[in-house]
């Protein structure tokens, strides 16, 4: 059994799986059930001056019969009285002392920050998360992503919070910026103990094509919401990795964005997250999904001989480089295994219409397509569309030129191989 204990900026939990600040962490009863199910930590639904929500709050992106590959919401922070939330935090910590309870906060003035931080810590919070990310509603009132998009304001409020807090402070970053680095560095300058990202992405999830109204529809109007769910994972992975490989940025990271299973979690860990936060998958499937997350991660680590999370965190970061450093002489070609090919020819039409026209009908008359390796650029599209796992592999061409990147070529005149697929 691998040691799954996690520590992000001094916030410790029995495993790296935290519930993100969102509807699944709206109340003490919910969080107790989540901890019973196995969640290592929970970031309490953002506390602040309680708001009034709209009716109709969520929207989903469905694709080829799969529901909610993407998700968005126009819900705001807590709508429950602060004293009720604090009472429930006390109760949760009393019954679950080993699980991490992080309280998400969003208020405006320094006095309000000081007050709500004190009350949170008094209630037993193991850590705080400053919500500088919410891209809808609250930002119109000068909070949420309105803070996260301005590094100076981010730094100032972070320094207030760190000054008033006796527990670790995480800054939750918004992805609604052109470059994440200035914002992570601002949190660091403000003294934060860690960052969590990404918050949701500003989005319109869809349009009701019968009513000509955006979704989710509130009477005859709607507004942009926060995009999340499986579809946002690639954006989140990039932003997490951008920070993790930055030499100036040194804070621990709690990774968030489309994490639906243990595999997703491993990817976030490999790119530098020391814990992960989950919301959408729990909203779609319930707290019970954590059982497989824990077991899957454990089994994976045992099979890899990795004893603890330190053996995973950031281990893929060295592979993240610039395009100019990639080896232009590395050459792969697609191979189709005729014994597992089912003859759908999706690879052929994809290559002909969407790639480099190197897969053709087999001259022997069978439905196993023929790859013209002299033209194959190794783009992977055929493998991506193939419905049979393992049927198409991309294999490295031997006897090639020595490795040479674009930078090598420009700087030292390194020899590049002849281009393929430029017919």
């Amino acid at each position, binding site marked *: 059994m691998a040691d799954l204990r996690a520590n992000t900026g001094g916030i410790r939990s029995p495993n790296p799986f935290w519930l993100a600040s969102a509807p699944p962490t709206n109340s003490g009863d919910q969080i107790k059930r989540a901890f019973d199910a196995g969640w290592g930590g929970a970031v309490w639904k953002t506390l602040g001056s309680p708001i009034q929500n709209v009716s109709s709050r969520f929207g989903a992106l469905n694709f080829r*019969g799969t529901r909610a590959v993407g998700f968005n919401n126009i819900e705001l922070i807590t709508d429950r009285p602060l004293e009720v939330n604090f009472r429930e935090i006390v109760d949760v910590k009393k019954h679950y002392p080993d699980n991490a309870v992080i309280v998400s906060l969003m208020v405006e003035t320094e006095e309000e920050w000081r007050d709500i931080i004190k009350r949170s810590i008094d209630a037993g919070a193991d850590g705080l998360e400053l919500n500088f990310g919410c891209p809808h509603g609250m930002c119109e009132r000068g909070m949420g992503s309105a803070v996260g998009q301005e590094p100076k304001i981010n730094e100032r409020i972070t320094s207030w919070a760190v000054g008033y807090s006796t527990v670790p402070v995480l800054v939750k970053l918004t992805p609604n910026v052109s470059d994440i680095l200035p914002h992570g560095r601002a949190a660091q300058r403000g003294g934060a103990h860690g960052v969590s990202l990404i918050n949701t992405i500003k989005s319109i999830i869809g349009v009701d094509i019968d009513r000509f109204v955006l979704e989710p529809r509130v009477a005859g109007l709607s507004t942009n919401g926060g995009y999340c769910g499986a579809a946002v994972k690639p954006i989140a992975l990039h932003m997490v990795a951008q920070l993790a490989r930055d030499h100036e940025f040194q804070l621990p990271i709690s990774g968030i964005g489309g994490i639906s299973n243990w595999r997703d979690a491993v990817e976030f860990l490999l790119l530098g997250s020391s814990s992960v936060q989950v919301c959408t998958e729990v909203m779609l499937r319930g707290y019970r999904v954590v059982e497989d997350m824990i077991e899957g991660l454990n089994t994976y680590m045992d099979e890899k001989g990795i004893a603890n999370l330190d053996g995973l965190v950031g281990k893929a970061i060295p592979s993240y480089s610039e395009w100019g450093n990639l080896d232009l002489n590395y050459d792969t070609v697609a191979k189709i295994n005729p014994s597992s090919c089912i003859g759908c020819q999706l690879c052929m039409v994809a290559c002909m219409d969407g790639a480099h026209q190197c897969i053709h009908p087999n001259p022997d008359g069978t439905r196993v397509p023929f790859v013209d390796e002299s033209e194959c650029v190794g783009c992977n599209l055929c493998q991506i569309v193939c419905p049979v796992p393992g049927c198409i592999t991309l294999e490295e061409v031997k006897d090639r030129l020595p490795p040479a990147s674009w930078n090598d070529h420009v700087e030292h005149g390194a020899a590049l191989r002849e281009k393929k697929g430029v017919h």
Partner: protein
Amino acid sequence: MPDSSPSLPPDRSETVFEDFKPAYDEKQALVEANRCLYCFDAPCQTACPTHIDIAGFIRKIATGNTRGSAKTILDSNILGMSCARVCPVEVLCVGECVHNHQDVPPIAIGKLQRYATDKALEEGWQFFEAGAPTGKRVALIGGGPASLAAAHQLRRYGHGVTIFEARERLGGLNTNGVAPYKLRADDALAEVDYVLAIGGIEVQTGVAVGGPGGSSFADLERDYDAIFLGIGLGADSVMKVPGADLAGIHGAVAFIEAFKTGTVDLEGVTHAAVIGGGNTAVDCVRELLGLGVPCVQMVYRGDEAGMSGYEHEWDEAKIEGAQAVWRAMPLAFEGAGRVAGVRCAALDDQKKPTGREFTVPAALVLLAIGQSKLGALVAGLPGIALNNGRIVVDEGGATGRSRYYAGGDCANGGKEVVNAVAEGKAAANTIHHHLTNGRE
């Protein structure tokens, strides 16, 4: 919509049957449609005699474009609704689905096609208009699937058409012969009306061409520019053995027509026998079980491996309680006035009598040993060649006699509805080519 036929009695015997492949509702159709891989140059399409763009129509179901889906189907096969129900998809499109190669259940193409075409008929979606009148006229003899498909295609080209049907109702075997758990007669007639809704298809029913009161071929040659023969097959073959005239012995196709368009009385029949081993025999076994006969035995000369009926249908029949007497040759029908049993000789592997004889108890016997060929009806027309009773045609449906074309069972000897549709449509295209002197 034109009323093609006299109404069917509401209490006819076939109404006891339910669909053996129930229709999909929307959610089921979407789940199944989204499983389709959308193959390129899809094998299912190649396997369909009418070459429906199956991957295309399934994708349209998945996107909610059901109207476009139905149009895609019906553009290739105007009888797509009945074909969706009656096609032996297991040996056609579904049998070729690539999912079979990875041991994943193949796409239920027939059920998806039914989903789209049922909707088209329910909603009355019409996709095709008659072409501008050409002044040419085509006579179609026989009102079954081949003629209906040909007539519709010819109307799209703008030619005038008249269907001559000897029975009271159009639809051919779809109306009179298809097993009711696949397609009921009222649905078949609804489809006929849907086909006729293109307009301009004249129909003459109840009078046989060449028969009393009917037009002669000479009349048709005088009044029409082309003649299509879609006359199907003739009466059930009979067995010339002792007792063949006892009551309770029927030809299979005639019996099926009787209970599809009217009622049959099976009161007191506890044992029935079906002679034959083909698809009609298997249908009859399942139909008699469905009509309430407790013990139905198929009597066949060969063994299970050698029967020509589809394996998947016989498997269904067995689940429904069918029994079989293999390697048995009827010698005589026994009984006083009414049949009581079939006296059989046991056969060996070479279908030679072993010398042993036995009696299969049966108060009802259906003979499903084939139908006569109707080629003789046109044998007197010089140029039309017959092969084993079938009308010989080329790939485009042309006979050896100028201006005569043929398709469906009378030309192919008895295949599926979808083959008749394909052949009728091909003949229509050939006729159009000839009527326009090859300009189109």
